[in-house]
């Protein structure tokens, strides 16, 4: 197993946000984590990275990582793209990408030039401070930056939120590219949309728990689940 989350609980102060989250991911699998705003999807990925203190068991490749410092989790091969797209605004686009590299002496499979080729907008601004990028460009940059660290599993939190349809399509293509390279993906989204074509499996979250697990087709046919947990 790539990732096993067992009976995960998390709190913000006194409010109990995650209430026993259980799921697992296989090597090379693309899994979508769906749900309405505020159900605890971001908290789930944050507690896997240790940004929110987790209670319960989180195993990565069989080893317990719950509560480890985030850099050690990352070094084990877990990549994380947070929802606020935390690019480093005062660093250039190129420097942002370079900081994604964990070990400069051991080149990984992703290269700076490859992302600059893939995204001409980033190439044009390669030496400009990343703070000037548009929302879509920042999103491309954060995903690319995390890939520079050669993760085996990448968790991407709402990459398409607030972006124009054309950009959403580009991000979908990038995610397919990542999947093709054999990287496992945990994709947090609100609705099925881009997750539909790419995901092998879908998890739906409601009130701090996983309330549905199945293929995208199964979710599409399960109108009751969609009505209760996804659509507004």
């Amino acid at each position, binding site marked *: 197993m790539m990732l096993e989350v067992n009976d995960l609980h998390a709190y913000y102060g006194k409010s109990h946000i995650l209430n026993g989250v259980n799921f697992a991911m296989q090597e090379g699998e693309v899994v979508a984590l769906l749900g309405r705003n505020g159900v605890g999807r971001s908290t789930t990925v944050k507690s896997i*990275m240790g*940004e929110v203190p987790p209670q319960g068991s989180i195993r990565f490749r069989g080893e317990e990582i719950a509560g480890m*410092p*985030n*850099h050690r989790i*990352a*070094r084990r091969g877990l990549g*994380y793209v*947070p929802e606020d797209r*935390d*690019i*480093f*605004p*005062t*660093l250039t686009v190129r*420097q942002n990408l*370079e*900081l*994604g590299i*964990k070990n*400069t002496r051991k080149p990984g499979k992703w290269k700076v030039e490859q992302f600059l080729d893939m995204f001409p907008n980033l190439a044009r601004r390669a030496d400009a401070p990343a703070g000037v990028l548009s929302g879509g460009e920042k999103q491309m940059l954060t995903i690319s*930056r*995390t890939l520079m*660290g050669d993760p085996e599993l990448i968790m991407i939190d709402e990459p398409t939120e607030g972006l124009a349809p054309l950009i959403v399509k580009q991000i979908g293509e990038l995610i397919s590219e990542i999947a093709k390279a054999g990287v496992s993906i945990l994709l947090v989204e609100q609705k099925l949309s881009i997750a539909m074509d790419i995901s092998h499996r879908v998890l739906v979250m409601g009130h701090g728990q996983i309330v549905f697990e199945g293929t995208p087709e199964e979710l599409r046919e399960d109108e009751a689940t969609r009505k209760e947990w996804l659509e507004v």
Partner: protein
Amino acid sequence: MLEIVIFSTLNGILYGLLLFMLSSGLTLIFSMMGVLNFAHASFYMLGAYFAYTLGMHTGFWPALILAPLLVGALGALVERFGLRRVHANGHVAELLFTFGLAYVIDELVQMMWGTVAVAYREPAYMREPLFTLFGTDYSIFRGVVILISILMFVALWYLLKKTRVGLMIRAALTHGEMVGHLGHNVPRLFMGVFGFGCALAGLAGVIGGPIMSTEPGMAATLGPIVFVVVVVGGMGSLQGAFYASLLIGLIQTFFVAVNASVADVVNAMGANLDPYGELGRISLATLAPMTPFILLVLILIFRPRGLMGELEP
């Protein structure tokens, strides 16, 4: 007159550079870790005392390197085994911790080196004049201090702008958590920056000690001024700290040097103040120590974010 202007400018710049050597470390530590290190000037004092004691065995130049390294290592240990644990309890706890630390260091210095100034001097050959202008000498040592400061800042600039560690530091200034998510050891980076900041303060002590006198009150004298520099420059802004250091250095030096009274100044601006009255007869030199704090108060009223800062303190 010209003589006073030239020498005051040189001395003001030298004092400003020393202030920046302290405030650059303080501001880096503050903007990265959110810690206002009250003990920062105490590390400056340790630099002077370490150089004094080491210098008796090794001579000035090796002590110039060893003392800041020692102070830096001490700073790193303080971060690793003190601050890092206190950090879990929030910023107030951290503030109190550094406050306590300042007193502990002050007391230790008095226990080890006594309560009066020690005879820490630059080597005799550096007391020779570098140049003589209008019959006044400017010592080689002062020239060396300015040179060392400038070299130090070039090195600091290079570190921050051109090295990978510098990139990490600049990234962590705004997004520390994200730097960690990318697999970089941010706690170790914090320890390094804290130690480096303390080493800079130590270096300022090594080269400032012979000029400003090495005595147990030196931290308490300079500490508040360094805080003023950081607030006036703008919390967290290195560039702001640089301008504020030079500004305060120059203002204070000029107030000391100018032989005039308050009445001379306001009367020159058209007022009519009794030159022998309570207020009028005060000399500018006696006001000099107050100038940084007057500036602080004015900045807090009229420009709370400081010269270059983005945040309000």
